[in-house]
């Protein structure tokens, strides 16, 4: 009975969404603000990756909110799963092959993550992607070694400092420039590593923050056994 009602309800919702979508032109050239961003990204932000220039510069305020959302999720997770006695992971040690290869892959993964967030303004990728890659590396270590522990104090400090850097860059725009999060550094030559003004700095901070936060989240979620 429930299934029938649910299917009927969803059929109605689906009909209306599709009906609205079929009215839209598909595959047309970008217009409106999208076209403006494509035309002026190099001139105004010195960044060749238009998506990055929108995420960090034109709509940088959204990204600050996004970083906050992730921070809140990590905090909320810690609050919900908080236990005075502390908890342990229940994973068994993996086989020797997995352990050895994880040990070899882990530093490379961290390096790749760092590459991705440093080059966020030049290639596809950025702080969030790079941070996620770093966290995957740590997840690999968590899975392979029962005893692998992260340094919580260090993670908290990295998280805080990275967040503070982001907001401070924003506030310095307010002090030396004209508005919050405004670029105050020279734009440089497009397509070089040192270009784009504050964009690489923000993405490096975001990369550190996301990497540390996702590691904390994974660590908290994996520790389910009362210890």
């Amino acid at each position, binding site marked *: 009975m*429930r*299934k029938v009602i*649910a*299917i009927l*309800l*969803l059929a109605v*919702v*689906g009909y209306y*969404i*599709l009906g609205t*979508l*079929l009215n*839209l032109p*598909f*595959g*047309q*050239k*970008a217009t409106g*603000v*999208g*076209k403006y*961003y*494509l*035309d002026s*990204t*190099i001139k105004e932000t010195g960044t*060749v*990756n*238009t*998506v990055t220039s*929108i*995420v960090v510069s034109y*709509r940088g305020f*959204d*990204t600050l*909110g*996004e970083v906050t*959302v*992730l921070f*809140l*999720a*990590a905090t*909320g*997770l810690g609050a*919900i*799963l908080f236990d005075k006695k502390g908890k342990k992971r229940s994973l068994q040690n993996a086989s020797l092959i997995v352990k050895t290869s994880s040990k070899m892959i882990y530093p490379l993964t961290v390096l790749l993550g760092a590459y991705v967030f440093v080059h966020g303004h*030049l*290639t*596809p990728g*950025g702080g*969030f992607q790079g941070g996620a890659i770093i966290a995957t590396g740590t997840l690999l270590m968590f899975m392979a070694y029962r005893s692998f522990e992260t340094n919580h104090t260090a993670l908290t400090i990295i998280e805080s400092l990275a967040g503070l850097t982001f907001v401070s860059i924003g506030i310095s725009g307010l002090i030396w420039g004209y508005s919050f999060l405004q670029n105050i550094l020279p734009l440089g030559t*497009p*397509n070089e590593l040192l270009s784009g003004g504050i964009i690489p700095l923000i993405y490096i901070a975001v990369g550190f923050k996301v990497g540390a936060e996702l590691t904390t*989240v994974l660590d*908290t*979620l994996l520790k*389910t056994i009362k210890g």
Partner: protein
Amino acid sequence: MIYFITSVVLILTGMYAVLVKKNLIKIVIGLSIIDSGVHLLMIAIGYVKNATAPIFSKPGLTADKMVDPVPQALVLTSIVIGLAVTAVALSLVIRLYDHHKTLDINKIRKLKW
């Protein structure tokens, strides 16, 4: 066009899972399927025929041969938000399992509808 239909199918599948399934983990999976559907829809809206990624990495690339970058930027934000919600949802599932020793919503009194 196929992108629009696929994304709507994904959204509806996720909603079906949330409405009908009894297992808490399956409900959370349903939530992430809805998210994926919306994200695919956003990318499809920015699609331009025969165009490339909006990155001026080589000389000779011009703006009118690129897809709309705004939906891609929005998707980035929305993915992170979806991830945050999933993480909080999973932590609540762990708490509920601690209290009830079950993942079946029929046995958890208040979650029945």
